[in-house]
């Protein structure tokens, strides 16, 4: 097989792995932020009291 | 349901622990074993449950109508150890025993969640069993008796490590079981808070001193 094939394949595999890694972390971050926002929205009353006291410390 | 023991004797190692123990229990009756440490209470319970071979004598189980049945089929046995897996959650443990035991004819068990509720620990069935405190573990082991129906309960020190409130809960559950025609055999060092039980006092290596009706 030509050398070009090996070069292309190795760049492709590296790109794929980097892309998967980046995508996973990105999506994970989106999901976490969404969860935090949901908690914020649903639990303002409960959280604000606890947080208010906490921030004084 | 009727449980009869005649002239039981059992051996541990080379020693005869007791001999000539006989009793007869009908629906709604209970027998409490008391006696010093090492007097053979646990041994007697294991003989009755069919886990140890009796040296002499026999235990017979009669279901109304059907004639004699095998020991294991009709009874729940709660030993010193809890028979639950520390790695699995309480729910998985109870669920497994529910489906493994099946129900004896004439009754059905309640669900795992309900059973945990009955012993006062409804909220924590999702925790791995190993995370629970000693008393919580014992309670969950007791909940195992509720998930499937068996007319005879054989309990070895059921209230070890329990707080006062749980003891009262257990007494209620046992009373309810007897009220539905169940039979109870329990070894214990502390009064279980049950009235009208017969008591069998074991006196260690020398056999049985007496049987007191109450």
């Amino acid at each position, binding site marked *: 097989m030509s050398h070009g094939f090996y070069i292309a394949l*190795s760049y492709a*595999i*590296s790109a794929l792995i980097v892309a*998967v890694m980046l995508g996973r972390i990105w999506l994970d971050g989106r999901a*976490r932020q969404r969860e935090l926002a949901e908690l914020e929205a649903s639990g303002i009353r*409960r*959280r604000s009291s606890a947080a208010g006291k906490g921030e004084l*410390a | 349901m009727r449980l009869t023991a005649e002239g039981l004797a059992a051996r541990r190692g080379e020693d005869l622990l007791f001999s000539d123990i006989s009793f007869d229990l009908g629906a709604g009756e209970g027998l409490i074993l008391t006696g010093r440490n090492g007097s053979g209470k646990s041994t007697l319970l294991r003989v009755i449950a069919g886990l140890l071979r009796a040296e002499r004598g026999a235990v017979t189980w009669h279901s109304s109508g059907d004639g004699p049945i095998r020991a294991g089929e009709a009874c729940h046995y709660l030993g010193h150890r809890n028979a639950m897996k520390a790695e699995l959650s309480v729910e998985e443990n109870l669920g497994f025993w529910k489906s493994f035991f099946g129900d004896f004819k004439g009754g059905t068990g309640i669900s795992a969640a309900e059973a945990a509720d009955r012993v006062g620990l409804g909220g924590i069935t999702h925790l791995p069993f190993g995370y629970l405190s000693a008393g919580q573990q014992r309670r969950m082991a007791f909940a195992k008796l509720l998930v499937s129906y068996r007319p005879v309960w054989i309990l070895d020190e059921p209230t070890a490590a329990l707080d006062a409130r749980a003891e009262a809960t257990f007494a209620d559950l046992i009373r309810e079981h007897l009220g539905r025609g169940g039979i109870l055999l329990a070894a214990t060092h502390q009064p279980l808070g049950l009235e009208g039980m017969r008591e069998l006092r074991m006196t260690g290596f020398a056999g049985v001193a007496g049987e007191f009706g109450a």
Partner: protein
Amino acid sequence: MTQSLAITKFSDLANPTYFLNLSGRILPWLGCLTAVLFAAGLYLSFTTEGDYQQGETVRIMYVHVPAAWLSMMCYSVMALSAIGTLVWRHPLADVSHKAAAPLGAAFTLIALATGSLWGKPMWGTWWVWDARLTSVFVLFLMYLGLIALNRAMDDPSKAARVSAVLILVGFVNIPIIKFSVEWWNTLHQPASVVRLDGPTIDPEFLIPLLVMAFAFTFLFFTLHLMAMRNEIWRRRVTAQRRMAARMASREN
């Protein structure tokens, strides 16, 4: 009681909060820098001359070598964090080595894959069991094991401490990888860039290689910061869910 609990929670997070703010400001710049470096590096690596010995395949080097370096550097970062966990008990250190493990596994996988793809034309085989290759394979297995360990334990701070111990013990593998080519004579190239008496490699290859190495390094730091932020958020979510559940049960 509720109050004191809230206070610990927030003093614990005081530091991470600062970290979140800071990293939030740095990240866009870091991302841009990474992208620029990659563009330059890729351009250089496809425009430079081929090697007279290795032909065109030398281009694989521009991915293979940086990835291999990163796989070791990532472990070193984890080892530093592990010291942070055990000595200072810093919560950020816990987060750091937990977040780095999957990244390390990915870079090691790249090094393994590109190495194999380079080995086929150069050595005529995909894989040999020589010291360098196997020690990298072992590194890969250790990353996977650490990921599994973190998953198997559900108490995060205990998981962090235990895996920190393992990371430190496993650090002996890094010098083995680095020096394996010198201790055992193998098929693999000995070091030609990072060595005491200066690089011996032709500058023709050195420049794209270094640019790509910087690109990979910045990529690692970008991803590491992102993963750390995710992990902090994840812990916040569980903590707040717990608190909400506790409050709910108290109100009943």
